[in-house]
């Protein structure tokens, strides 16, 4: 049965949001996690705890505080407005900012854990061959902690896809702009339109399942090449 045009829009928007968020998360998260995994300063414990905080608060509550922070009356909201000419709340950009904050621990934690197991000896070897920081990062750390990167990206992406509370609060459920799939799906359930909810949820599940199997199958295949990793 039928997925309405609005569902398609929501799906598309969700994928965009999840993709953009994941990219930003990886770009921010990887160096952050690396630094956290190497630093021994006390300050880094504070940063580590701060990054993990969004884990503790319920998403709607985070959303509520973000909503307040995004208000043009407050620093974040007003500076963003001044910089981009657009408000943060109730816009796609706002969703991205919110999702990044909310999903950051889901990316940083697995990466950090992966980096912690990284064999420093290989980095030293690369260093003697003249490999600089970025070189080592892209040619050693990423391939050797591939699994941690996959996990981080997956958790980040999926968490953004399934996110609900934050998006509802700061997004305002505006079709085409901030109405993501999770909210549309919730709306169907709330409107007792169970059939559509089933279809949408089923489709989403089937799609995700197929994607995950592909991803894991591929991962597993590659894995057997490098036994110890």
């Amino acid at each position: 049965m039928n997925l309405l045009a609005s569902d398609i829009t929501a799906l598309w928007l969700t994928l965009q949001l999840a993709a953009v968020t994941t990219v930003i998360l990886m770009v921010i998260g990887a160096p952050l996690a690396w630094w956290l995994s190497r630093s021994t300063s006390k300050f880094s414990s504070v940063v580590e705890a701060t990054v993990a905080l969004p884990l503790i608060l319920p998403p709607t509550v985070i959303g509520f505080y973000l909503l307040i922070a995004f208000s043009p009356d407050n620093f974040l909201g007003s500076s963003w407005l001044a910089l981009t000419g657009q408000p943060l709340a109730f816009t796609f950009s706002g969703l991205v900012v919110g999702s990044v904050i909310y999903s950051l621990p889901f990316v940083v934690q697995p990466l950090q854990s992966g980096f912690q197991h990284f064999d420093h000896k290989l980095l030293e070897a690369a260093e003697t061959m003249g490999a600089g920081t970025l070189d080592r990062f892209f040619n050693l750390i990423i391939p050797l902690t591939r699994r941690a990167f996959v996990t981080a990206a997956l958790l980040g992406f999926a968490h953004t896809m399934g996110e609900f509370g934050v998006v509802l609060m700061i997004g305002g459920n505006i079709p085409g702009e901030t109405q993501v799939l999770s909210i549309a799906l919730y709306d169907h359930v709330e409107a007792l339109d169970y059939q559509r909810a089933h279809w949408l949820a089923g489709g989403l599940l089937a799609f995700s399942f197929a994607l995950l199997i592909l991803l894991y199958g591929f991962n597993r295949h590659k894995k057997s090449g490098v036994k110890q990793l």
Partner: protein
Amino acid sequence: HSALTDTLSIATASNFRPVLEQLSQTFSEQQNADEARHKINISSASSGVIYAQILQGAPFQLFFSANESYPEKLVASGHGEPKTLATYAIGKLILVSRYEIDDLEGEDLEGDDLEGKSPTDILLKAKRIAIANPRTAPYGIAAMEAMDSLGVAKESQSKLVVGNNIAQAWQFFHSGNADAAIVAESLASLAESAAVKEQQQRLFTIDLSSYLKHPVRQGRVAIKPVSPLAQQFLSFMNTTIAEKIMTDGGYLLPTKGKDITP
């Protein structure tokens, strides 16, 4: 502003969304016949969330709340246009239960408060009663009030399962986890018309409106600045077609005199 791209953003309490969707569809059909093309975006959430969002500058033009106080507060804070403040609907409170007819020795309980088959019996017999959250949802407050009037408030207290809103209370009941629920008539009619038909079990619905001293009055307001399209939509709400849609959806209409027309 070309009429072609005009957009009307309406925020509504979740319980009114299905009816509002029908309303906006009918409205659009009428308007588009006049070649004034536009788009209506409906956003739903709980009234409290929408209220907070409007305070933070959410781009909504109309707000259909599940109570009267949020629209009033918005007017007081200067966000709402006082002239558009109105009660647009009165919710009907009903009790639904899954008991077989035999269980209650009655033939047809629907609509009537038959002797011996009172809501009190049902509420006393139920193991779990689903209601909306009385702290946040108007129908929750109403449900508590009704149980108070029925004199079962104390006995029911430990059986209550509280949904965030009536839709959730309905799901508690509908999924079979609660055997009775006090919800809005609008939900029951929605359920009647949609998926519930497939379900073999018959529902019992008992109107509890008569047990309420404070019926659930749902208020609305337009957010400043009020666009012509918003004005048009509010006018449309007073047409008979619109009123028919609302009553079919399980709402009572407020007395005409209280309405404010532009």
